[in-house]
C-alpha cells in the first residue's frame, strides 16, 4: 500500500511562506484568493496489506518523526496498490 501524507502548520500559527504566496497571487490579480497555507507532501510505500495495521504505522510515523505536533498537523490517505 501507499500512504500520502500532508503536513501543514496548525491553524493560528503564522505561516510566512503561505502569506508571501498569498500576497504574490493577489498581486497577480487573483482577487478571490484568501488565506494560503503551505505544507509538505510525503509519499510512503508500505509493505503491508492490512489496512488497519498500515494506518497504525502511518500514524506512528507522523507522531514520531514526520510532523512536529507542537506546530504542525497532519492528514493522510492510504491507497491500495
Amino acid at each position, binding site marked *: 500500500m501507499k500512504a500520502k501524507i500532508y503536513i501543514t*502548520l496548525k491553524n493560528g500559527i503564522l505561516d510566512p511562506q503561505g502569506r508571501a504566496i498569498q500576497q504574490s497571487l493577489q498581486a497577480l490579480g487573483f482577487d478571490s484568493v484568501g488565506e494560503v497555507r503551505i505544507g509538505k507532501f510525503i509519499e510512503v510505500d508500505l509493505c503491508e496489506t492490512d489496512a488497519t495495521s498500515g494506518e497504525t504505522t502511518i500514524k506512528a510515523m507522523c507522531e514520531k518523526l514526520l510532523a512536529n505536533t*507542537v506546530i504542525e498537523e497532519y492528514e493522510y490517505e492510504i491507497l491500495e496498490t
Partner: protein
Amino acid sequence: MNIGIVVFPGSNCDRDCGYVLSKVLGQTAQFIWHQERSVKGMDAIILPGGFSYGDYLRTGAIARFSPIMDAIVEFAGRGGMVLGICNGFQMLLELGILPGAMLRNRDLSFICEEHYIRVENVNTPFTNHCEPGQILKLPIAHAEGNYYTNPVTLSSLQANAQIVFRYCDREGNVTSQANPNGSLDNIAGIRNAAGNVLGLMPHPERGAERLLNNEDGIYIFRSMISALEAHKLLQPV
C-alpha cells in the same frame, strides 16, 4: 573541564566551539561522533550549530534520533550541563528537552548578522559571569529561529525565568524592531525548568576572541566552566 561536542553530518560550528574551549579557555574539548552511544567522562555537552542532515524534514528532526541522543537525554536528566547552539537548540526542541518549536523566520530570509541580546537571568550555569540585563552582541545565522510555543508554555517560561536571552536593540530595549526573526516574546534563548540545559540561537563561539573584534560569547563559556568548577556538576557515568 572535559567538554564533549557532538558532531553530526552537517555540523559546521563544532570546530569553532572546540577552538574556543581548548585554545581560548584552556579546557579539554572532545568531539563525539553522533553514532556513538556514550558521553562517559564528559562534564558538559555541547550540541553545536550547523545543518545536521541538511535540515531535511525540519531542523534537528533527524539528528534528534541519532544514537548518541539517548545518552544525552539521560545525562541531562541527571542534571548534566547541556548547551545547544542554533541547530543544537533546534535539536533540543525536537527532543522535547526544551519546550516549543522553531518556525521559518518571519521575513523568510536566512539571517547572518550580529544582533544584540539581553541577559534576562544571570542565575544560570550559562550566564553567571553576566550582569543582570547585560547586553551581548552575538552573531546569528539561521533561517528557522522564529521561536514558537503555546500561550500556556510561554507563561510558564516567563514565570519561571526560563527565558534567558531576548533580542534587544543596542540600548537593551526589547522591541519588535529589534526582533530579527519574529520569535515569540523576542526569545533568543531558553533554559529548562531544572536549569541545566540551555538552548540559544546566537553563536557565542563565533564571537569569543579579541581577534574577531567580539568577545561577548566568552561570557557564556566562562559561566559554564565556573559553574562546573563551583557546583561540581561533574557526574561521571
